[in-house]
């Protein structure tokens, strides 16, 4: 089997200005935060970001990386509203396509199946139709029904974070929900997975039922070993959300001076240094 182990830098080297990038996870859960931080440190810009959004969307907006966001919501879960995303929306600095959560799934699924659209009722009659005039309806050929034709949302690249993977790109989620990570990968031309640990293939099925092996190497181009790579979002059962850190993030976002400090300390260093500082912080907190 092909060895798909790559580094974070290899992933960034595959990205281009203006690309459409899908980011897996959900709100503040199992987000590929290490890869997102790597984008923040790169010169990339004008990205279209597709996400069930959390701090991934907020950080990319705050760093001026984003041209357009396609989303059903942007939330930090335990903190309902994402401060940087709000600021970007209220300043009018990003274009948006705001969708129903199910429409977003349908758009990814249509792209995954190479269909131009999939029909649904979700979105009909809401202001999604007026705010996105490109959306069309379709008449059922089998009866008296009108449905929204949710267009495919093809991605240039998908970035997701998993609990485990093998070198060939078989991946494993051990938490309660895969979210839509497999659809993000299936909708994308290039698919990169960061994970807590790269293990031997046999270790995957030893560590969880076969149902946890939903995203296979068929849908993965590169695997990055990134222990702690979802921090500060949750990556159950490896670690829960770092609520104290998230609170610090959200509070800092509202104050330019504190945000500059936060950025210097947490967003301008590489993953190794990030881990070291996190260890230091833990020691401070637990003193």
């Amino acid at each position, binding site marked *: 089997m092909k060895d798909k182990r790559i580094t974070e830098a290899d992933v960034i080297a595959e990205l281009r200005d203006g690309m459409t990038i899908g980011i897996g996870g*959900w709100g503040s859960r199992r987000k590929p935060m290490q890869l997102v931080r790597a984008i923040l440190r790169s010169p990339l810009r004008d990205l279209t970001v597709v996400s069930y959004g959390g701090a991934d969307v907020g950080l990319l907006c705050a760093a001026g990386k984003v041209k357009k966001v396609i*989303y*059903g*919501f*942007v*939330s930090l879960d335990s903190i*309902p*509203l994402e401060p940087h*995303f*709000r600021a970007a*929306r*209220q300043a*009018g600095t990003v274009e948006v396509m*705001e*969708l*129903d*959560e*199910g*429409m977003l*799934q349908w758009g990814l699924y249509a792209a995954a199946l190479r269909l131009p659209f999939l029909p*649904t*009722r*979700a*979105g*009909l*009659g*809401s*202001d*999604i139709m007026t*705010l996105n005039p490109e959306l069309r309806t379709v008449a059922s050929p089998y009866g*008296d*029904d*009108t*449905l929204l034709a949710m267009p495919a949302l093809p991605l240039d690249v998908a970035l997701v974070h998993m609990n485990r993977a093998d070198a060939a790109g078989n991946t494993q989620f051990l938490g*309660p*929900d*895969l*979210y*839509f990570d497999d659809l993000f990968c299936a909708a994308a031309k290039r698919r990169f997975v960061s994970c807590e640990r790269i293990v031997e293939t046999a270790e995957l099925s030893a560590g969880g039922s076969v149902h946890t092996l939903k995203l296979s190497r068929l849908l993965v181009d590169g695997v990055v070993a990134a222990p702690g790579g979802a921090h500060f979002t949750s990556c159950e059962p490896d670690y829960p959300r770092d609520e104290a850190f998230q609170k610090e993030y959200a509070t800092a976002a509202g104050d330019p001076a504190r945000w500059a400090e936060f950025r210097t300390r947490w967003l301008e260093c590489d993953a190794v240094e990030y881990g070291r500082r996190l260890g230091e912080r833990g020691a401070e907190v637990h003193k």
Partner: protein
Amino acid sequence: MTDPTLDELCVVACAEAWRGDGELLASPIGVIPALGARLARATFAPDLLMTDGVATLVTPEGVAEGWMPYRSIFDLVWSGRRHVMMGAAQIDRFGNQNIASIGDPRRPKSQLLGMRGAPGNTINHPTSYWVPAHSLRTFVARCDVVSGLGYDRAAALGPAARFHQLRRVVSNLGVFDFETPDHSMRVRSLHPGVTAEAVQAATGFPLAIAPGADVPTTRAPTADELRLIREVLDPRGTRKAELK
């Protein structure tokens, strides 16, 4: 046992929204709606299903009875076997709801959650709302942007909206429904001590109130319901904070 407080009355009013639903997924958003759904299941609606808020269906005793990741939730939404109680930053006379943003949605004055599942929920299965602070800011003549569909928009869609159904709106002042000829919002009951004049003054559109007739008072919790709320479902009193 001491007299019921407003939060306890609201828990019961929320619970009533799920009466008669049988075996479907109750999805309450918020503390008081969640207590309401759990109360309904513990008493008059024992067949309701609920998740732990993550991805597991759990019995009242907290035993896992099924796996319900987001993908299955969306399937369930579109199949109709769910009754959600959502919040509303704004709600209008026909039950159109906004949770997305305040101001011009193209460049909002205040970005809120986004559309979330409101468009898909409202067009596919029963929906109720919980508004803890009834005021002219929340009960508005017109929503700045519509996430969840009201009856006028559903009617304009025709057969495409045949599964649309708004059950109840519960606020800190009363309980409302849409059981009028034109499906405009109606006072179903007022909480004790609230007058029809007071609720109308806090509402940005004319509420249907039967002229001359006495508006019913929201029913008080039974002794058993009060005991369940206070001793079993919410002994720490988390419900109090939602009405501050």
